[in-house]
């Protein structure tokens, strides 16, 4: 009888250890989940690429741009050269404009180089988010690819 009582007390102690361990594992799991969910920044890259692509296509539709002078492209299309070209390493917004299809046409303007990651959208969230569309201005067909990996700067 006495032995049995001791056995049950030890059993209860072991059970409470497992219960506390279970709570610790749950707390750790929830914490990691919350940090992973809320720690992620608001993803604006896809929308930003879409807006810039639309602006460039609208500009190419209404204007004849001499791409040999990149200043003309930026001033006619009302795009900020300092933000996009000079601060490229910070903004990480890539632009490729082709005369014809970009897969075999001539590249008339390019900012940034890593467009291969555009083919992997959805595979890895760290890759830039791209927007690929074309425009016909009556004389030429331009293919426009814009990719963004622009992140906010926390100071």
């Amino acid at each position: 009888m006495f032995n049995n009582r001791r056995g049950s007390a030890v059993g209860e102690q072991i059970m409470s250890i497992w219960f506390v361990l279970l709570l610790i594992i749950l707390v750790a799991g929830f914490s990691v989940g919350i940090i992973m969910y809320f720690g992620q920044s608001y993803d604006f890259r896809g929308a930003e690429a879409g807006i810039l692509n639309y602006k460039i296509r609208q500009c190419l539709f209404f204007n004849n741009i001499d791409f040999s002078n990149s200043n003309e492209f930026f001033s006619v299309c009302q795009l900020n050269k300092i933000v996009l070209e000079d601060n490229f390493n910070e903004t990480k917004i890539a632009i490729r404009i082709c005369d014809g299809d970009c897969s075999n046409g001539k590249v008339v303007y390019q900012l940034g180089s890593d467009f291969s990651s555009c083919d992997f959208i959805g595979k890895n969230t760290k890759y830039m988010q791209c927007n690929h569309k074309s425009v016909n201005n009556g004389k030429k067909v331009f293919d426009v690819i814009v990719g963004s990996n622009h992140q906010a700067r926390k100071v």
Partner: protein
Amino acid sequence: MKNKKAMSSQLMDTIVMVILVLVFTLFIFAMLSHYKNGAGVWEDFYAKEIARAIDMAKPGDTITIDLDKASIVAKSNDYELYDKLVRFDEKTREIVVKLRTNGETRFSYFNDVKISNVKTFLGVPTNVLQFKVEARNV
């Protein structure tokens, strides 16, 4: 007598378990609310949404943005300069959102426009930011 002892020990075990579960639940809720009202998350959101509005704007547009949630988050972070929650850095072409005493979030806009007439209206009925988008080379 023995029965009473066993019962009180069982009661103690149950109380300890209930306290542990309560502490666990409170910890999870506290963590959730801390992250949900986190200034960093809302600074990031406001900076990017204002950038979206500017990037899509045309010269002559006037943009009005509701800063109600931003004001609540700033207040909970002891930053009560409501007329300075959002400002525009003309040099770097960045939107600067500050909802906490130490630190801020910056995000640049690519539309080549000038931001002018930046005004914050408090309590109309909520806090509102208003600014005008102008052509840069005028």
